[in-house]
């Protein structure tokens, strides 16, 4: 079973040289820590920076330089700042090759719900709806089940949607799954996790190929 860093590490393997990547808040943010040195990848934060770097050294933080999670950050050489309209022009115009974000629920048709729980305080969708409606390549990073132990991989979402039919791949603490033809297709097992464990934790339709290799996350 993977921890949050493990999930991030596995997702980092999906990233290709030359890609612009938008990482959501939470587990997705950790993905940046596992990109191989020398790989040409730039991180976009939708509040207005391309070429986002790591957190600043103590004392170097700048109130004017934050990411979409409102955390203080730094800028890499070649970075650029821009306004919010330009930022979402990049996203909507499909100039960002990969979006990684968290979810409360993912459905077997690729629907995602991650912004609203009826009856609870709604904070808003931020940029998530723009991101999922636009990106060609959306990976969801999340735990396979919620705190109550219920599957987050469902036949259909019960919560209000963030986007429809958009998620291509899900990486959880248990497995890597692709979404196609209305089902979750098991691709890899997390270390020490059996296909039966995964099947038991997946409420949606799960297609299990003959051979399900264990992840190699080094």
């Amino acid at each position: 079973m993977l921890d949050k860093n493990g999930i991030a590490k596995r997702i980092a393997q999906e990233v290709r040289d030359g890609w612009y990547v938008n990482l959501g808040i939470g587990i997705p943010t950790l993905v940046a820590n596992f990109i191989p040195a020398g790989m040409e990848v730039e991180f976009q934060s939708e509040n207005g920076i391309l070429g986002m770097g790591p957190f600043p050294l103590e004392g170097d933080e700048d109130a004017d330089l934050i990411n979409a999670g409102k955390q203080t950050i730094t800028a890499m050489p070649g970075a650029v700042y821009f306004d919010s309209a330009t930022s979402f022009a990049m996203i909507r115009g499909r100039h960002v090759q990969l979006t990684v974000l968290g979810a409360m629920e993912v459905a077997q048709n690729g629907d995602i719900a991650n912004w609203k729980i009826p009856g609870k305080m709604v904070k808003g969708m931020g940029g998530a709806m723009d991101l999922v409606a636009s990106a060609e390549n959306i990976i969801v990073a999340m735990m396979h089940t919620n705190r109550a132990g219920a599957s987050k991989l469902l036949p259909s979402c019960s919560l209000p949607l963030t986007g429809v039919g958009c998620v291509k791949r899900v990486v959880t603490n248990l497995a890597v799954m692709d979404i196609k033809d209305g089902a979750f297709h098991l691709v890899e097992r997390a270390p020490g996790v059996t296909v039966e464990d995964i099947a038991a934790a997946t409420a949606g339709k799960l297609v299990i190929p003959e051979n399900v290799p264990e992840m190699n996350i080094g």
Partner: protein
Amino acid sequence: MAISKTVEGPEAGCAGVQSGMTLMLGGFGLCGIPECSIAELVKLGAKDLTCISNNAGVDDFGLGLLLQKRQIRKMISSYVGENDEFERQMLSGELEVDLIPQGSLAERCRAGGAGIPAFFTPAGYGTEVAEGKEVREFDGKPHILESALTADFAFVKAWKGDSAGNLVFKATARNFNPMMAMAGKITVAEVEELVPLGALDPNEIHLPGIFVQRIFQGTEYEKRIEQRTVQTRETA
């Protein structure tokens, strides 16, 4: 000869704001917010305001200050966390909230300033954001029709500016400020540094002064950091 927009300070900047008006306020989180204008709006006490701003501040800073005084009737935002008073007013029904995807919010402000009354975007299709909106397919992909936003006043904050209203922003403090400046009937810019006319390179200006009606030199910027994340010098 350049048109002079300089006014004395936040009092002159906010003159004319009245109860019931729609205001836009730049900033993302607490980054790049018009601190001085917000302080003045609290003093002015206008009520029943509709505020268009990506966020709603925190309890004791940013738009939270207007919420505390119950000056806001409706918020139009993309994300409103980090604010207990906001939550209380929203749950009690005192405060109306219209949540909009962040990219649609940015584009709707730009459209408002650019004379584009409506445009199609894929964002929000199939969600409750699309309810009541026209849907149309382009290249086989469904999009929804979103309309322009404008405001009686837009309050923005820049790093540097000149008397012609030309603005330069710093780093990610730019965010929504340029589009909101475009969309305000009266746009009030506060700047950390008001420089002499001609001191800004015309190539480096982010927002042309034509979109700004009033500009003043702000003072005592707190520039509060919402999430101070750092690496300790030992680990780096």
